[in-house]
């Protein structure tokens, strides 16, 4: 069995570096695919654009999705995913700066599995990433790949 992939959708290189650092600090060694905008995330998932020809049967174990993204924002990515048979059951954790009420309502409304706010304090951020890794990579059982060829 192949190592579970984490899809990190994040446009801010600082946040990307910090997230990768937090993962490393927690000894999470899974492959991390980084998509820098919403379009790239969907291309990865659907095997289009720069990911043309990718084996789409290889699905991420969890998607860490930022909300404010260039091109397509996090909500549009989520909507497109939930509207597609291949990706509608994938676990999505919204990982964002805000705790705006409408963001949370929209996120869960579109089928997010979790909503986590990135803390300013890096220690807290490491703790949050640790909890996420523990839960989504070890404890959580994903839906069987039904309907996939």
């Amino acid at each position: 069995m192949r190592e579970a992939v984490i899809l990190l959708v994040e446009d801010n290189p600082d946040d990307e570096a910090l997230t990768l650092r937090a993962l490393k600090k927690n000894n999470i060694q899974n492959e991390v695919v980084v998509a820098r905008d919403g379009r790239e995330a969907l291309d990865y998932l659907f095997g289009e654009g720069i990911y043309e020809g990718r084996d789409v049967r290889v699905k991420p174990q969890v998607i860490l999705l930022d909300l404010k993204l260039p091109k397509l924002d996090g909500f549009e990515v989520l909507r497109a995913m939930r509207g597609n048979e291949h990706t509608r059951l994938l676990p999505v954790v919204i990982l964002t700066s805000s705790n705006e009420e409408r963001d949370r309502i929209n996120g869960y409304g579109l089928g997010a599995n979790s909503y986590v706010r990135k803390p300013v304090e890096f220690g807290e951020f490491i703790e949050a990433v640790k909890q996420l890794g523990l839960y989504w990579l070890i404890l959580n059982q994903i839906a069987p790949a039904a309907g996939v060829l």
Partner: protein
Amino acid sequence: MRLPNQKLSRNVTLINLLVSAAALLLACAAFVGYDQISFRRSMVSEVSVRAQIIASNSVSAILFNDATSARSTLSALSASADVMWAGICTAQGKSFALYQRTGTDRVPALPSIAPGQMQSVLFGNGDIVLARAIIFRGRSLGTVYVESDLSTIAQRRKEYAAIALAVLLASMVAALLVSWLFAKSVADPIVGLAALTRDITEHKDYSARAIPTGRNDEVTLLIGSFNDMLGQIERRDRALREARADLERRVEERTAQLTHANKELESFSYSVSHDLRAPLRSIDGFSQALLEDYDAKLDAAGKDYLRRIRASAQRMGVLIDDLLNLGRVSRATIQKEKVDATALAESIAADLRRAQPGREVEFRIEKGMEAWADPGLLRIVLDNLLNNAWKFTSKRGHASIEFGLRRDNGGPACYFVRDNGAGFDPKYADRLFGAFQRLHAMTDFAGTGVGLATVQRIITRHGGSVWAESAVDQGAVFYFTL
């Protein structure tokens, strides 16, 4: 519509008829009464003249005791149709001569002449009897009596009544005619005016106008004033309508501006909450990375600076969060319901104890307190006040925090949070609720200074008020009403 017209005309006609009839009847009565009196007076004087003639003509007959001559003197009265009976008595009261109109043989009741008088009159039923003394050289020789029929007076009365009736009827006809003309010229414009007022009251159409009569009288004046009044109402109405439309337009404009401003504020705070925190995360995160990865290359001062950078970044994060919460509280829609304030305070107290288990704090929370408030916002209020009390009692060996309800007579329910903490100088009490206003040094007590500003906004939005009493080192009491 024609009904009131007929009514007014009828009334005018009726009044005219009644007034004419009354005036005529009074005039006729006065005239007939006067005529009767004067006729009677002339009757009396006529009979008196006859009696005097007979009296002077009968002197010699009485003196010479010639009854035949006296009778012939009396018989001359047959020329006067109204004389019914006449007679002469001697001074001794004996009947001397008589005259009777054929067909009558009765003797009327006779008046007697008072001493010193020449004659006396007695009015009977349908007749008049006059007695006249016969005097010759100062000596009374006897008396002449003449009875005259009054049936002519009755006749005259009948004639007068007939004439009065004819005049009355003619006057009534004339009054009717006058009334009709009057109704045409006076009643019609008034009735038209009345119909118009009713029409205007019903339909609220103040553009209608009464038609002037074209004459120069009070009715024209009335119609003119009425039209003026209508004009004023119409103008005022129009001004009012325009003012209202203007007001509505302005309200709409302001609402649009407000909505726009609110939207801008919302998108501003949205981007603040997304974009302002990200750099702080980088500052804190990479400072931490420096501390971890370059530990060996940094001396104590370098590490201290990095720690200060991190502390500031984190504090900025808290400030941004508090500020966003303050904005959220101002925009939140308030949905009031019955809230168990006691349970709310107890759960906050439990949270505080859990966060700092080492502290010894006595909580006294009144049982059974209920509040009519937005539950989420009330939680923020109590959270801030109890957290403050917790914070500012941190240097007390035995800390005590009380949450209760004071019910002043008639006033609104007044909640209070009392502590025995550091308190504050009452001189600065007015600054307490301003955003980012702090009365204590950061080194003594941490905080952003947004908490009480948030509390005040929530309380104000509930329509209540919040105030505090304190003295330095004497603890503080925060009161609020909802």
